Structure formats: structure tokens, C-alpha cells
């Protein structure tokens, strides 16, 4: 994965628990890197080690870490990294989700080594859609759930996400049922 992902994990931990905890997590994960370069590709295993170590050090289940990470990615990392691009990708949750496939296509052009997931929206209605998530990586379902929840907060839209088809359960790919309302989050 690109360094920006590991940076996001670092940013989330430092923001919520402090730098010393991050150093402890890195040590636990056996990662000896001071600064992750956003545009540099790092082994996927390193990211999973960091998430696993964060779960161990913070005593939080891995799924919860991934969901929190997904939210953080949308609300902080992506905002900081390509805030303009995020905003330019749509002004509402539905618009953003509709533009998501194109967004990743463009991102992939910029990062040649990127192996991004692909997103596809089907069954689009005014308040729901089916999000098809295809990736060669396993174990990131909860990260996607976190991303959706983060987008709900970003666009001030209450959102519910349910995994309706699971690759882990034998499906071709993961499918999420995403529902939202037009009532703003209080």
C-alpha cells in the first residue's frame, strides 16, 4: 500500500492517543520507519501489522480499529491529503458515491504502483444503493464500513451500511447495502 495509508494509521493513533503510543505500536509491529512517504509503495503486510499491533496495544478489536481507521481516512487524512479532490468529487453522499469509481480511476493514474479497489454502485435510489467492492486484499470489509460512516459524517447525512454479500462467505465480491436519509445529523 502507499505510504499515505500507513501515515493515516499513524495520524489516527497520534491524534487520539499520542506519539508515545504510536512508537509503542510501531515497536510492537516491528516497523522501524520514522516517516512514511505518501507516494511510496510499502508492503501490504506492514499496514496489517500496524493495525494488528494497534489492536493489541490499544486493546481494541481489529474490526473496531479498521472502522475507526475508515472514518479517520475520510474525515482527516483524505481531507488533508486531497481535500479539494474529495470536495470536487461530489457535494452529497449520493453524488460522491456515484463518482467514486471515476475518482479511483484518476487516482490510479497518479500512483502507478497502486492496486486500488474498485467500487461500483447499482440499485441507486434516492436514499440507497448497493456498493460493490472488489479488491485483491482480504480483511478490509470493516475499513469500507468505516469509510461509509465517515462519508456520512462528512456530508452530514445519517448512513447505515450492511454487508449483504461477503467474499469471505463465498460470494464473488463484497456488496454493501448503503442507506441514508436526507435528515441532517444532529
Amino acid at each position, binding site marked *: 500500500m502507499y505510504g499515505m495509508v500507513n501515515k493515516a494509521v499513524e495520524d489516527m493513533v497520534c491524534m487520539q492517543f499520542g506519539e508515545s503510543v504510536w512508537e509503542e505500536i510501531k515497536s510492537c509491529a516491528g516497523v522501524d520507519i520514522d*516517516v*512514511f512517504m*505518501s507516494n511510496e509503495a510499502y508492503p501490504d503486510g506492514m499496514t496489517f501489522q500496524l493495525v494488528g499491533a494497534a489492536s493489541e496495544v490499544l486493546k481494541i478489536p481489529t474490526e473496531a480499529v479498521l472502522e475507526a481507521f475508515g472514518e479517520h481516512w475520510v474525515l482527516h487524512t483524505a481531507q488533508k*491529503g486531497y481535500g*479539494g*479532490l474529495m470536495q*470536487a468529487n461530489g457535494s452529497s453522499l449520493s453524488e460522491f458515491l456515484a463518482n467514486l469509481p471515476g475518482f479511483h480511476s*484518476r487516482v490510479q*493514474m497518479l500512483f502507478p504502483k497502486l492496486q486500488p479497489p474498485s467500487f461500483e454502485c447499482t440499485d441507486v435510489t434516492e436514499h440507497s444503493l448497493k456498493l460493490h467492492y472488489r479488491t485483491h486484499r482480504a480483511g478490509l470489509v470493516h475499513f469500507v464500513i468505516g469509510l461509509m460512516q465517515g462519508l456520512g459524517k462528512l456530508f452530514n447525512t445519517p448512513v447505515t451500511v450492511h454487508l449483504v454479500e461477503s467474499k469471505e462467505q463465498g460470494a464473488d465480491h463484497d456488496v454493501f447495502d448503503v442507506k441514508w436519509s436526507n435528515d441532517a445529523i444532529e
Partner: protein
Amino acid sequence: MKQDNPHSTSQFGLPPQQFATAFPFHLVLNMQMEILQVGTTLQRICTDILPSVSMDKLFESIRPEGIFCVDWVLENARSFFLFKHRASDLKLRGEFVFLPSENVLLFLGSPWFIDASEIAIHKLSFADFATHDVVVDMLQLFQVNKMALEDANKLSGKLTAQRGVLRLANENLKKQEVKTQQLTSELLRSRDEMAEVVDTINQLKEGIAFLDCDDRFVFTNPEYLRMHKKVIDSVQIGVLFEDHLRALFNAREIVTHIIDCEEWVAKRMAAHRSLPSEFEVVIAGGKTLNIREQFTHSGGIAMVIRDISEQKKLQAQLVHSSKLASLGDMATGVAHELNQPLNIISMAAGNVERTLKRGEFGPEYQLEKMQRIKESVVRASKIIGHLRSFGRDANEAAQPFDPRDAVRGAIGMIGEQLRLSSIELLLALPSKAGAQVFGNALRFEQVLLSLIRNARDELIAHPSGLAPKRIQIVVVFQPQGQVSISVEDNGPGVPVALLENIFDPFFTTKKVGKGTGLGLSVSYGIVNEMGGKIVVVNTSGGARFEIILPTIHQERNPD
């Protein structure tokens, strides 16, 4: 400005609807540079762009510079144009295409941003851009570069901070190195000095041992080990001192009247805990050891053991020779003492002889004379007996005695000499018997004799005019279990400068050959051995030596 190329392979154009989708920000102008058509997205965000409105009212040209007109456009046909919308900050970048058949100018371009955040400011999204438009990709590229720069800055910052830390650490390291070198050299010097000290200690004839704060052996010199070779295991490093004492007792290395090991250890430990202390012990083989104990700076205990057996022997010899000297010195007095009973015997015998010659038989008279002769013989025998015992070697064991008897004995020896030297003797002895002291009575008598003779010699050497020469001896039993025996004269006193070292060995104020008495240092040793002390003070009219002795009911140092 593009011209129709007759050799172009392009044979197809875009229908109006697809053209509008492909160029959502296009403009179509007539030859008067008035708006004929505007792209739908551009019109949505710039609502003042309406048909027939003049271009120069809507935009200003940033590149190239100039005033909007067809000629200006044609002159800069190969350039790209950058306009700024007057009503907003929106910039349009693009090129002009002249369509001679239509006699219109097409401006094909799109908004120019250098930061993606500007898109949202102008109420646009990526979906508003044509897919072929590179502006979106450029914006993302800018963003990627921006992130890379931020990463580089962060890394640079971290490296700078780390370099600062390293520089500081390096400086500290250098300082530490200098300090370490200093400490090392000091340590080496201390080690050499320590080795020298240890070497010296190891060569001493005294046994030296150090105990730590927990009372365990941490150092013993060879002499100490030699002194304790029979209990060598009990003086190894780490052994508890108390266990060493038990080993000494159980190995019968200590001569003591105490039969219970723990009782003796408890007594010895009591002395060990009230430091500094100095005492003597007699060990197996009759040797006498002097033991000094005191605290060290680190809270441990230093012990020095000295074999004083030889010193004791010499002291005894000195006492004996001093006594022999005294006997010669006292011959006059003794002769006088003996003369009295001899005269009585002579006279009584003469009287009996006369009556017998006259034939006067008065048994009562003769019996009375015989009784006087008998009494005088007893008296003479006593004097001779005392002389005999005084001349013996005084190595007898210590035992309780009445200090007044020692005073009487000494006076009996020297009293006549004082009288012949016109020295008045004042004697104040308690009439009632008090507590006894513990020691060798003859040795103590010799101490008293020595003090009296010193006083006599001083009085003779320094006559004080008409004042009568006087020596006063006072014995006082003190209530706190002590007895004081003082010898005071009315001579010139001890010079102040000499008061401090008067008890040092070989100290004397007499001329060579005159000092036949017992040295004050030996007197000091005898009194000390009895658990007492001797001090000297100058009074208003002479010198006073005072001996303080514990009575035998008082606690004495353990063996």
C-alpha cells in the same frame, strides 16, 4: 488558430449536443467579439455570460495582453489564452478556433485551477469536467506533489531535530568522555594509592580487620588471619562478626571466667556496639591482646588488634627493677623502722639480764619484758616480710584489695625518708573500710611509691623558701562505685607545656641517671589495666596526681 487542413483525415465533426458535453466551458463569438453561445456548465457558474454581451465586458485577458478583437485573436493564433472572469476570480484557459464557414470564433477551454479546493469554491465538481480534460488530473498531480513536499518537509524536520539531538548527544558524549577520562585517571591513582595502603596494612604487625554496616568481614590483613589461624573459617569475607566470636569461644581461644558462650558473646558485642572502644583480652597461651574498635566513614567498623604480651612482660620487669631500686633508696627508712623494735628488744633483754644477774626473780617483770621482746620481733618480722614481698616479682594474679592498704604499705616504705627530708606527710584515709579494687596490689603500691618519690624529688629540687615541704595523700570512696587516691605536693607544679605528654613513655624531667622511679607511662598502664585512669592537674600551690579506680562492684570490660 486552427485552419481547415485539406489533407486532414478528419472527416467527422461533433453534433451540437456532444460538442456541448465535450466542451462544457466553451464560448462561441461573432466577429464583433460578442457572445453567441456558451457552454452549459460555464453559464451555470457565470450567469452574466449571456448572448450578445461583449467579451471584454465579461473577461479581461491575462495572456496574451491585449484588447479583445478578431485581429488580436488571429495575431495570437498559436498562443493559449488565459482570461479572468471580471465578476469572479474564475480563470479560463483555452484556445481559439476560427470557423470561416460560420464566420465565428470558438473558444475551447476549461477553468484553470492550481488547487483542487478552488473547484468547490466555484461550485464545480469533477463531474462537471469533460473526461478528456486534463485539469482534473493535473490538480491531483499537484496534490500528490504537495503531499510529497509535505512528507519531505516532515522528514527534513525530523532529520533536523534528530541531527540536533545527535549533536547534543555528541557534545554530551565528548563531555562524558572527558569526565570518564578524568574519573579513570583518578580511579587509577586511587587504585594505586589504595594498593599502597593495603600493602602497608598487610605489612603491619597489628591485626587489622574491617566490618561492613551489617557487621560482616570485608577485609582482614595477613596478621589478623595469623592471629586467628585456629578459627580461620570464621574470619573469611562475609562472615558475621558475632559468629566469629562464637568460634573464638568454642575453640577456647579466649581466657574468661564466663562459661556460657552466648553470655560471653553478648558481653563482647555490647563493647563492640559502644564505639570507639579499647580494651585488653588474654587469649589462650597467656598472650595479651590490645583491641581497638572504631567506626569507619562508611558506617562499618575498623578493628586493630595488637599483641602486647611483650610489652606487658617488659612492664613487669620495669616494675620489678624499679622496686629493687626503691629498696636501695629506702634502706635508711627501713633501717630506722627496724632499729626501733631492735632497740626495744635490746633494752628489754638488757633489763632481764640485769635482774637475773642481781638475782632478782620477778617473774611478772621478766614476763612483761619477754612479751615486749616478742611484740618487737613480730613488728620487725612484719617489716621484713613486707620488704620480702615487695621485692618479689609482681606477676601474681589480680585480686581484690583495699586501696588504703596499698597507701599504708607505700608510706611504710618511704615515710621515714620523707621525715629525714623534712617533708611533712598529711594522710587522709577513710576510717571505715570501703569497696575494694581489683588488680595487683604490689604493682599499685609501686605506682603510689613512684608518685610520692616524684613529689619528694621535686620538693627537694625546688625548695620554696621558708614554706614547709608537704605531701598530702587523700583517699575518698565515691558513691558512684569509684575510689579516688590523690597525691599532692606543694612544689612548683608541672610546667604547662609538659602536662599533655607527661604520661608518654620515657618522659622525664629529671637529669640523666636520676630517674630511678617507675615511669609515669608504666604507672598509667597499670592504672589503665585496673580499669581506672590517672590525671594530673596543677593546683594553686603544687601538682596533684589523681587516680580514679572502679571498685569491684562496677562493670568492667569483658575479657
